[in-house]
C-alpha cells in the first residue's frame, strides 16, 4: 500500500511539473499583458508538432529541438501579437480571450487536416531511454528529466520576473506603461517579447511532452482546461502561485487516480470551486 502510494505520488509530481510549466506561461501572459491566452494549449501542441516535423523532415534531434522549437514558435507568437493581438490591448479581456480561442481552433483544424486525429509518435531520445528501479516503482529516466527541467525552468522564470531589472521593466509595463515609456523604454517591444516568451514556454512544454504523449492535434485542448484551473486556483497572474499550485494539483490528482480513478478528471475543478469560495482571488493572488 505504502509502496503503491509512493509511486502514485511520484507520478503525480511528474504530471504536476507539466501543469506548472504550462500554467507558468499562461500566468506570465495574463499577469503582464492582461490577455487570457486561450491559444496556450494549441501553442503547446504546435511545439510538439514542430518538434516532430523538425525531426521528420529536417533531421533535427530532440536536444536541438528543445532550444530551436520554442524560439521558432515564440517568434510566431510575436508575429501574431504584433499583427493582431496588440490591437485589443486596453479593451475588455473578453476580446483577447475570443481571439486566442479562435486562433486555437484554426491551429487545431490545420493540423487535424494535415495529420489526422491519431497524430504522430515521437521517440524518447537515446540518452534518456530506460530508467531506474526505485523498489516501489520503475521510474523512466525521461520522466525524471521532465521533473528536473520543469522545476529549473519554473524557478528561473520566477527569478527573472520577480527579482531582476528586466522583470521589473516587464511588471512596470503593466502597472504604468505611459510612465515606463516616458523613461525611454520601448513598451510595445516589451509586450511583444513577453507574449513571445509565454508562447515559447508553451512550445517548450510541447517538446518536453512529445516523447511521452502521442503528438496529436487535440493534445492541447485536453490539458488547457486543467491548466486554466491551476492558474485560477493559484491566483490569476501570480507566477509563484501557479508553479506551486501546478505541482500541488498534480499530487492531488495522482492520489485521486489511486483511490477513486473515475473522479480524477473533476477533482481539479472541485478544488477550484472550494478555493474560490474561501479565497476569491486564488491562493496566492492579491485579495480583491
Amino acid at each position: 500500500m505504502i509502496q503503491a502510494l509512493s509511486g502514485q505520488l511520484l507520478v503525480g509530481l511528474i504530471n504536476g511539473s507539466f501543469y506548472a510549466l504550462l500554467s507558468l506561461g499562461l500566468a506570465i501572459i495574463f499577469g503582464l499583458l492582461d490577455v487570457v491566452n486561450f491559444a496556450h494549449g494549441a501553442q503547446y501542441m504546435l511545439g510538439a508538432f514542430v518538434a516532430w516535423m523538425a525531426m521528420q523532415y529536417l533531421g533535427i534531434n530532440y536536444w536541438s529541438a528543445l532550444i530551436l522549437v520554442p524560439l521558432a514558435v515564440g517568434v510566431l507568437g510575436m508575429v501574431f501579437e504584433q499583427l493582431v493581438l496588440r490591437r485589443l490591448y486596453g479593451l475588455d479581456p473578453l476580446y483577447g480571450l475570443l481571439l486566442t480561442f479562435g486562433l486555437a481552433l484554426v491551429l487545431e483544424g490545420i493540423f487535424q487536416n494535415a495529420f489526422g486525429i491519431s497524430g504522430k509518435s515521437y521517440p524518447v531520445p537515446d540518452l534518456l531511454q530506460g530508467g531506474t528501479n526505485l523498489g516501489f516503482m520503475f521510474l523512466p529516466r525521461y520522466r525524471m528529466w521532465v521533473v528536473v527541467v520543469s522545476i529549473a525552468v519554473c524557478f528561473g522564470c520566477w527569478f527573472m520576473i520577480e527579482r531582476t531589472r528586466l522583470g521589473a521593466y516587464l511588471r512596470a509595463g503593466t502597472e504604468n506603461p505611459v510612465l515606463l515609456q516616458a523613461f525611454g523604454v520601448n513598451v510595445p517591444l516589451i509586450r511583444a517579447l513577453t507574449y513571445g516568451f509565454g508562447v515559447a514556454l508553451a512550445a517548450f512544454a510541447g517538446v518536453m511532452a512529445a516523447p511521452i504523449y502521442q503528438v496529436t492535434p487535440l493534445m492541447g485542448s485536453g490539458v488547457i482546461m486543467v491548466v486554466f484551473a491551476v492558474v485560477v486556483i493559484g491566483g490569476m497572474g501570480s507566477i509563484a502561485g501557479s508553479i506551486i499550485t501546478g505541482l500541488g494539483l498534480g499530487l492531488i490528482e495522482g492520489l485521486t487516480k489511486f483511490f477513486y480513478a473515475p473522479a480524477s478528471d473533476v477533482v481539479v475543478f472541485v478544488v477550484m470551486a472550494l478555493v474560490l469560495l474561501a479565497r476569491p482571488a486564488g491562493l496566492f493572488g492579491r485579495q480583491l
Partner: protein
Amino acid sequence: MRRAFSNMALGGILILIGTAAAVAQVSGDVVKIGVLTDMTGAYSDLAGQGSVIAAQMAAEDFGGKVLGKPIVIISADHQNKADVASNIARKWYDEEQVDAIADLVSSSTALAVMPVAAEKKRITLISGAASTPIEGEKCTAYNVHYTYNTYSMAVGTGRAVVQKGGKTWFFIVADYVFGKTLEADTSKVVIASGGKVLGDVKAPFPTTDFSSYLLQAQASGAQIIGLANAGADTINAIKQANEFGITKKQSLAGLLVFLSDIHSLGLPVAKGMYLTTAFYWDRNGESRKWSKRFFERHKKMPTMVQAGVYSSLTHYFNAIKAAGTDDADKVMAKMKQMPVNDFFARNGHIGADGLHRHDMYLAQVKLPAESKYPWDYYKIVKTIPAPEAFQPPDPICPQVKK
C-alpha cells in the same frame, strides 16, 4: 467545445445521371445513401473521410446505378453526438429521400439513429459502432450490424491470449458504456477460457496520462493488461506502458485496435501486440487489390470500418437488384437471405437480429524488422470462424423470436 463550432458538413458529392428507362420500383427515382460518420473527432481516422470514399467507390464499382436508377452518396459529420446524429438522420429520411444510412461510428450515435430508421422504415448499415446491444435489446428490423462488435473483439483477443498462457488479467477501462461493455464481454471470455480477472481501473474518457493506471496494473501482478478503450486512449496507454517498462514483464492486450492506430504508433512501440480485426488489407490478393485502389484515393490503407462500409453498401445494392425494388422490407429480406462473398467476407450471413456473422482474424503486430513495405503491419495468426467469432442470436431481440 470546439465541436459546437464546426458546422454539419453536408457534402453532396456523387451524382450520376441515369438515362436507362427502367420499370423497377425505386422510390424517388434515385437510390440515396447517407454516410453518417465522425469527420473531425476522435474516430475520424478510422472512419471519417475514408468511409465516404469507400461509399463512393462502392457506388462507382456498381456502375453508378442500380435497377437503372442513379446511386447518390451524401455525407455528414455526426460529431459522435447522439442528438446530432438522430437530427441529421431524421432530416435525411424526411426531406432528402435517403434510403439507407451507412457507417455510424460510435455506439451512442448508432443507437440513436436505429429507432429513427425503424420508425421511417428505412435502413441503417452500421460499420463503425461496436456495442452488442445493437443486435440485442436495442435491435430493429431495419438494421445491419456489419463489420464487428465488442463480443467478437473479446472472443478473438481474449481467448487467444488466455490460450497462449495469459491467465491473469487486469483491465484499464474507458469509463463509459463502450469501455464497460468491452470489459464485461472480455471478462466473460477470459473466465470461460480458464483465466482469472484480478481487477480493473476505470479511467475517465479521454485520458492522456496513463502512468498512474499502468502502475496500478503493474502492482496487480497480472500477466495481461487488457485495454478496454479505443483511439487516442489506446495509443497513449500503449506508448506509456513501453516507457514504464511494463511490457517487459507483462503483456498488453488491445481489445479494440485499428490499423490507423498502429500506423500512428509505429511498429517500434506497437510490435508484438495481438489484436482482432475483421479485415486486413494485405490478407490476400482480393483484399490487396481493393485496398490499393482505395489507397490511391485516400493515401492511407483502409481500416476494417472503411472496408466494411464498401462491402455493406455493395451487399445492399445487390439486394436491391435481386429484390427488384428499394422497398426497405423486401431489401432487408434479401440482404438476410443472400450470403456475402467479396474481398471483405467469405460466406458471411446476416442473421434475424441484423448481425453480420463472418470470419474474424487474430493478428499480431509485426516487428520493425519483419515489415517489408509501407503499411506492412500485421501477421494473421489465426482465422476465427464466424460461429465462434460472434454470439448466437439473442432472443432478447424481438426479431429473433419471430
